[in-house]
């Protein structure tokens, strides 16, 4: 299969990038000022205590040895042990990844769908009132800091109107949700837990809305521009000049041609959203990956930082790979 070969080749290309990320992160966290061991020991700890702790985490080894050990661990899926918690990073990360991915994937999916719909709608009314309104609103949404928008939405949606649950968790604990993937809504759907589904969904509304508002504008701009380009293309004019009905035009000639350029932008948006959900997570008490990574960074929890950077980088490049495959699927002109 051509597509498999393409994916394979791209995966191979990822190796130097990810290796670069690993090396860079490894060096970076160690160059940063701050001692991870001191942050876990009490003020009364002696140097001997600190040395013992250092030895426990292998931080007494020479740098190259630490790196090789770490690299060796990576190949077996072992991201090391968190200095803060003493637990394996792999497990903690698995727990934290679900909530964030749930948030980002849902938000970006909604944003992309909304952008497609609104963008085409807007392009078909190019330069009329509706078009301007939609675009200006999207720009407004894009101009508000997410953390502030989050607070405003909480004030309105929770405190004033009381429509949404308290932003203190992701699912009602009384719903007795069995955690499987860490993504509450997914877990609730898998286990068919009705109350949990509605509770998880209700908790998702505001944070997802915050993210969607934040990322809609660039997607919308892109879809609208592509749609306009298609609408003004000779190809579309030809189809219209041959008297094809609206529906055929929209479905067969406008939509797919419009979406061709979207995947890579969507991937970029996804990557940015993944890297910056920490703000939204903070405001909505969403105990996800961003919070975990940032905390790790502030405490210089080396294995946590290394793992989180690597995972975000991996997710990032993976999403771009997916985007390229989708692009190739949408656009027959792309050779892969």
């Amino acid at each position: 299969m051509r597509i498999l070969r393409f994916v394979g080749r791209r995966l191979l290309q990822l190796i130097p990038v990810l290796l670069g990320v690993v090396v860079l992160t490894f060096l970076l966290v160690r160059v940063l000022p701050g001692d991870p061991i001191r942050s876990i020991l009490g003020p009364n700890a002696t140097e001997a205590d600190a040395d013992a702790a250092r030895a426990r985490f292998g931080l007494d080894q020479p740098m190259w040895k630490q790196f090789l050990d770490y690299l060796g661990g990576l190949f077996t899926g072992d991201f090391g042990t968190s200095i803060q918690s003493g637990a394996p990073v792999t497990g903690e990360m698995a727990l934290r990844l679900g909530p964030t991915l749930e948030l980002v994937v849902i938000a970006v999916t909604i944003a992309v769908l909304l952008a497609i719909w609104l963008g085409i709608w807007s392009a078909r009314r190019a330069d009329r009132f509706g078009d301007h309104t939609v675009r200006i609103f999207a720009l407004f949404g894009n101009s508000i800091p997410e953390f502030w928008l989050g607070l405003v939405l909480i004030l309105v949606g929770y405190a004033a109107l009381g429509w949404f649950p308290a932003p203190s968790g992701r699912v009602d604990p009384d719903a007795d949700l069995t955690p499987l993937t860490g993504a509450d809504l997914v877990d609730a759907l898998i286990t068919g837990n009705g109350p949990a589904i509605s509770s998880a969904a209700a908790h998702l509304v505001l944070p997802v809305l915050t993210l969607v508002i934040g990322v809609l504008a660039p997607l919308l701009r892109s879809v609208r521009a592509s749609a306009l380009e298609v609408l003004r293309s000779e190809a579309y004019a030809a189809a219209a000049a041959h008297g094809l009905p609206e529906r055929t035009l929209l479905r067969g000639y406008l939509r797919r041609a419009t979406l061709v350029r979207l995947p890579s932008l969507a991937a970029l948006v996804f990557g940015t959203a993944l890297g910056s959900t920490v703000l939204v997570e903070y405001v909505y008490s969403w105990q996800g990956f961003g919070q975990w990574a940032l905390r790790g960074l502030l405490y210089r929890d080396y294995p946590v930082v290394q793992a989180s950077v690597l995972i975000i980088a991996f997710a990032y490049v993976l999403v771009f790979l997916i985007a390229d495959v989708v692009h190739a699927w949408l656009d027959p002109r792309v050779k892969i």
Partner: protein
Amino acid sequence: MAPPNISRRGLLQLGGSVALLMTTGACAAGSKDNPDSSASAGPAATTLRIAVSSYLSSWDQDFVGFDLTALMLFKNVYPYMIDYGVTKAGDSEILDTANITPTFAESFEPDSTQKIWTLKLRKGVMFPSGNEMKAADVKWSKDRAFAAQANVAGIYRTIGLTKPEQVIVKDDYTVEFHQEFPSALTKQIQAISLYVFDSVEAKKHATDADPWAKEWFAKNAPTGGYFNVTKATQGQEIELSANKAYPGTDGAKTPTIRLSVVPAAANQRLQLQAGDIDIALGITGQDLQDLKKVEGVKVLSAASNNQVMMTMSVTTAPFDDVNVRKALAFAVPYEQIIKNVYGGDARPVKSYVPLDMPGYAETGYPFTYDIEQAKAALAASGKTAVNSELVFEANNDEQQKIAVQVQAEAAKAGITLKLTPLDPATLGERRTQKSIPLQITTGQLWVNDVEYMLATFYVKGAALNYANLNNAELEEIYTKSHTTVEESARLQLWSQVQSILAAEVPAVMICQPNFNLPVREKVAGWVQPMDGLARLRYLSASA
């Protein structure tokens, strides 16, 4: 307790804080004895909801997990053999750090040499697994602590316990602790350290590579304390249920307590106002003043021994010159800080000795806000302007505000301060290096005694001697105080201490803020923990 030193963002709540002055040798404390705790006895509602700012980093108290949320939870879920009693202070109840009583244990008493302490366990105390709590559990737990070479092992050194062999099982219900030397601090230290694991259960999860089941305990809560953890969603929520098997009389009053992690203070506040949480542990500053006016919410308030100060390193320029230190002490707007940062809810301090501590004298800190005098003091040092940095905890609103106020006023006296907020890792490292010229520190002394204060802050080698003070007279007084028992003689020493410190000026004493905790009106039974770690068992909710 201090407004829990939980920062606005909850990301940094540990913050290298000095809140936990649980350290080093100092002799016994002044005594206070009215052990009768009269916890309020309203009809217990079934569930209390508490918002905390962050999730605990680990459930394993031996190995890692040195953060405030964790330590607070440990106090409630680990079975501690002995603990502080409760006493009245004014209108409110506080933990009595001088009165340590057996809880899960039957008794904990020394022999006549004060070197051998015998711990007698109650019979029939059950872990939830069905295993009985026995001497073997204590032994295994202490062996584990020594093996960890961390928290407990470090503290045990101060009372002459360094090897597992010093913990001897006498019979199923008796364990002896053989100290290398007698210590007046044994009870204090053991109150912090004498918690036990369900060793039978723990051994099931031990492996050759991991004989102490570290991995298991990093993720799984210990059992058998006042509360058992019935559910824990990592990063998000913990559900505690009262341990029905608690053998004593003052078991948990609320059947279920839910702790949910809400990092944003504004968010905690909204939820408290809406009644979605009952207690908010992460609210500080102006919010507290605001909440006093909110219907359905009350702010528990009490005088506190929490000291807020700015420590100057006497060995680091420019504060190696006492006149510069004095100049800064004159340049700090004490009243304005109390008003602007604490909304007036703090007491000005006139001594290095905390208010309410025996020996406190108004003359111990002869500095008031006076820019002219500050300039004069600076002139006396031969300089007209100095530069330094002011270090404080990143994301600690209170310290940040203090820093801002100080910076503005100090500048008027010719002291230019660069504000340097530091994250915990960097702060910890720089404190170890003893290279911070000026830093804001806050904290409580667990023992209400000047000797303990000296041992903590002002003698050579004291863990929190960030001033790097090394004063021969103080060292002498400190040594003398070990053997001075008579009250008036001690007070005599303390008065000397205060005049020496007033001359040395190792720190700017900003104020002693009052303790405040916003809760829903139905919450009752709050006992103010002098170690900053809330004992949830006293809490109840009136319907």
